[in-house]
């Protein structure tokens, strides 16, 4: 095996985000770097988000909250890419891959209430089109006129990263010239809290402090992250500003347990190795890791093991930080939001810290960027290389290799 010679290069030309830190990719990264935490009352709520500020009445009525987030984040991303109301390519050559872990959970719950209280005849015809997991994908394609390949991706907490990986391949292999991709999630409902609580997955203290010895579970969040990917030569030909390169993608599966990660980190480390190799790089070229870092005992231990297996001695030399320390765990949106954060990290040269990390766990011995933000050092004259990890319930592992734009 090895990388195929004729694959096309793929660059990021726009990013967008709706997160508990506010609307905007810059807002996400700037506030993370400043040490702000978007978590309150046990979750990462997008409290300030008012869909009516961004969308028409019709769009608001017809879209579950997870699709509303996606539409707003995609608007920001295509705006930054300079897509002036329509894609700059044949629309049939522009794809869309949007991920979610669960889909329109709020709509499911609302319509179940209607069924119970008012009968089957009153269940809304908008129920299915709102809660189907591909609803956000459909909404984004209609909003921006994208007529190439499109679908939803579902792999729990790895969904957003799988979406970016699938979009990368779509362009690399010539099935599309550009793809709008990402993930969105809006599951801060009583039922979802009850379900995750029953699994003992959520932090009872409501504090997200990945890799800290006191970590006691993840804190659920909501939001969306979207990236515009374009084939590099086409992007250059139209004069687009390149933010970063999606250089590599690796994905494996634990086949171990429904929810617990494989404890040696073996399959997860393989995903990291595949992403590095896919980017035509060596482990020593990696300058930063945006960790999955959920703040659960099991993930943070298995992820640390996976990073060490993949990078060897180099693992201890590079910073590893978790965006979930500032926004919580956005489930199916997490991988996309963290890819957006990674792009901003490469672009600004500033690494966000793992907030709340104060008490080291003797078993976890990497540099988790405690305390405050720090400059991204590396590249050795080349654009820096970052890895963004995503691991999921179900045993799905994804690593994305993201390279900074040449300066």
């Amino acid at each position, binding site marked *: 095996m090895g990388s195929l010679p004729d694959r096309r290069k793929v660059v990021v030309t726009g990013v967008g985000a709706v997160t508990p830190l506010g609307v905007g990719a810059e807002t996400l990264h700037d506030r993370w770097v400043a040490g702000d935490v978007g978590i309150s009352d046990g979750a990462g709520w997008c409290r300030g988000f008012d869909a009516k500020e961004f969308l028409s*009445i*019709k769009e608001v009525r017809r879209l579950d909250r997870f699709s509303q987030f996606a539409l707003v984040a995609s608007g920001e991303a295509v705006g930054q890419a300079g897509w002036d109301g329509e894609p700059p390519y044949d629309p049939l050559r522009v794809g869309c891959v949007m991920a979610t872990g669960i889909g329109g959970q709020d709509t499911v719950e609302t319509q179940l209430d209607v069924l119970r209280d008012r009968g089957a005849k009153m269940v809304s015809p908008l129920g299915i089109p709102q809660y189907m997991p591909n609803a956000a994908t459909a909404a984004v394609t209609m909003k921006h006129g994208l007529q190439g390949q499109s679908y939803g991706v579902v792999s729990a907490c790895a969904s957003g990263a799988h979406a970016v990986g699938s979009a990368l391949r779509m362009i690399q292999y010539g099935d599309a010239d550009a793809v709008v991709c990402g993930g969105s999630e809006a599951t801060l409902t009583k039922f979802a809290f009850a379900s995750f609580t029953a699994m003992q997955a959520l932090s009872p203290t409501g504090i997200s402090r990945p890799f800290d010895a006191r970590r006691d579970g993840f804190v659920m969040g909501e939001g969306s992250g979207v990236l515009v990917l374009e084939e590099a030569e086409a992007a250059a030909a139209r004069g687009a500003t390149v933010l970063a390169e999606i250089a590599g993608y690796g994905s494996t599966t634990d086949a171990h347990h429904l929810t617990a990660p494989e404890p040696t980190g073996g399959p997860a480390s393989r995903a990291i190795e595949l992403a590095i190799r896919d980017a035509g790089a060596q482990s020593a070229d990696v300058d930063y890791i945006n960790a999955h870092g959920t703040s659960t005992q099991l993930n943070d231990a298995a992820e640390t093991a996976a990073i060490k297996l993949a990078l060897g001695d180099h693992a201890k030399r590079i910073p590893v930080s978790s965006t979930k320390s500032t926004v919580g765990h956005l489930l199916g949106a997490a991988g996309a939001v963290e890819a957006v954060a990674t792009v901003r990290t490469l672009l600004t040269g500033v690494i966000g810290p793992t907030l709340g990390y104060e008490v080291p766990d003797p078993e976890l011995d990497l540099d988790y960027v405690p305390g405050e933000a720090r400059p991204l050092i590396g590249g050795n004259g080349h654009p820096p290389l970052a890895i963004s990890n995503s691991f999921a319930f179900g045993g799905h592992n994804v690593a994305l290799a993201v390279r900074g734009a040449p300066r």
Partner: protein
Amino acid sequence: MSVTTEQVEGRVVETLASFGPDQSQITRAATFEELDIDSLDLVELAQVVEDEYGVVLKGEDMKELKTVGDAIDLIVERAE
């Protein structure tokens, strides 16, 4: 059950306005196409009408409707 055309008109306009179009555009002569009211909206309108007036509008009834006035007239006729 007796309802007046005015009552039905008021309810239909109010319901359609909640679907997106500006209330001032919703006249009897306005077509659903002009108002960007599609088949899913009409199913929702039918649910409101059934709930309110006990009038059952089926898919084939809805297909014939072109304007807001067509819908109001059909509902009033069925309600009598």
